[in-house]
């Protein structure tokens, strides 16, 4: 099991949940936590710091993809851990899934992708499930890869993956870009089952249907230009 790892949490206006998420991670022994506060207008930063996380502050809001890239490059340049696990700030991810990522052999696998469709989705609305499934089909066609879940933020980047993957899409379309980078850089990947807890809060914070259409359009536009 890997000991030298960091948990990376991109956060935007998450003052209600971030402290709970950080404290839960620490209570399970995951003490290396980096929160990238993506220009929040609330007290996300203070809450995360008080809960025990290190915090990098984006001066302005640039989106989840940008926050992830900041965190990945910072940890790569300064900590060089064996793996970096990306974790959502809204409490959707299950802390008890983390050991599943840490038990992977990162000498053979470059990136481990969490899949809610191999695992469990608690309280997932049917519309969200349909949209996510369509997103999977779309991303698989665009990237030429076969995955069961393409827009899940629960991932573990091994050293080769976090050094080679460059996220240039600053918004939510970064999820499709990561899959494309895996293909382009010929990285070894593996999907493992994870549990996603949907709550009123996480659904309120998450993507709307229109958001998914926007992501698809941006991915198509990027492919064309």
């Amino acid at each position, binding site marked *: 099991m890997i000991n030298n790892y960091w948990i990376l949490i991109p956060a935007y206006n998450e003052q209600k949940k971030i402290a709970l998420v950080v404290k839960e991670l620490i209570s399970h022994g995951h003490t290396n936590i980096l929160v990238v506060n993506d220009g929040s207008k609330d007290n996300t930063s203070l809450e995360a710091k008080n809960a025990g996380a*290190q915090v990098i*502050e*984006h*001066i302005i809001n*640039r989106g989840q993809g*940008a926050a992830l890239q*900041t965190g990945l*490059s910072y940890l790569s*340049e300064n900590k060089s851990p064996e793996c970096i696990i990306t974790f959502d700030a809204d409490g959707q991810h299950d802390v008890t899934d983390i050991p599943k990522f840490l038990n992977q052999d990162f000498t053979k696998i470059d990136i481990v992708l969490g899949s809610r469709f191999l695992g469990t989705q608690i309280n997932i609305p049917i519309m969200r499930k349909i949209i996510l499934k369509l997103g999977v089909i779309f991303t698989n066609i665009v990237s030429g890869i076969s995955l069961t879940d393409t827009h899940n933020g629960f991932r573990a980047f091994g050293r080769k993956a976090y050094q080679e993957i460059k996220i240039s899409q600053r918004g939510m379309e970064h999820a499709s870009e990561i899959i494309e980078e895996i293909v382009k850089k010929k990285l070894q990947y593996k999907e493992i089952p994870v549990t996603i807890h949907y709550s009123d809060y996480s659904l309120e914070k998450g993507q709307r249907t229109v958001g998914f259409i926007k992501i698809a359009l941006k991915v198509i536009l990027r492919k064309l230009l």
Partner: protein
Amino acid sequence: MSILQIIILIIISFTASRTLLRFNDKSIGYGEFIFWTFIWTTILVLAVKPYLSDTIAQALGVQRGTDIMFFFGTIVLFYLIFRLYVKLDSLDRHLTELNSNTSKAIHKLKK
């Protein structure tokens, strides 16, 4: 010369002078200067001698000069929108990179 032609002449003279000024202060390069000068000159010539558009149209197998002007106008507009999109995208990426690098540097200084 009609009032419309005079108005077009004034507008073109003004925009052409701005292009020259921007070229002189090196805000735009040779390529852009030539491109814009060509655009303004074409509009100027067609405004003063509108029948020329009919001659060009007929040479290209189109009946009316207005059709050919509309056609080329649309192409130029699409091209300019494309260039703007590319430029905006590049600016957006640079802003994200600048934001990220500044954030990391400030975090290191605070530690």
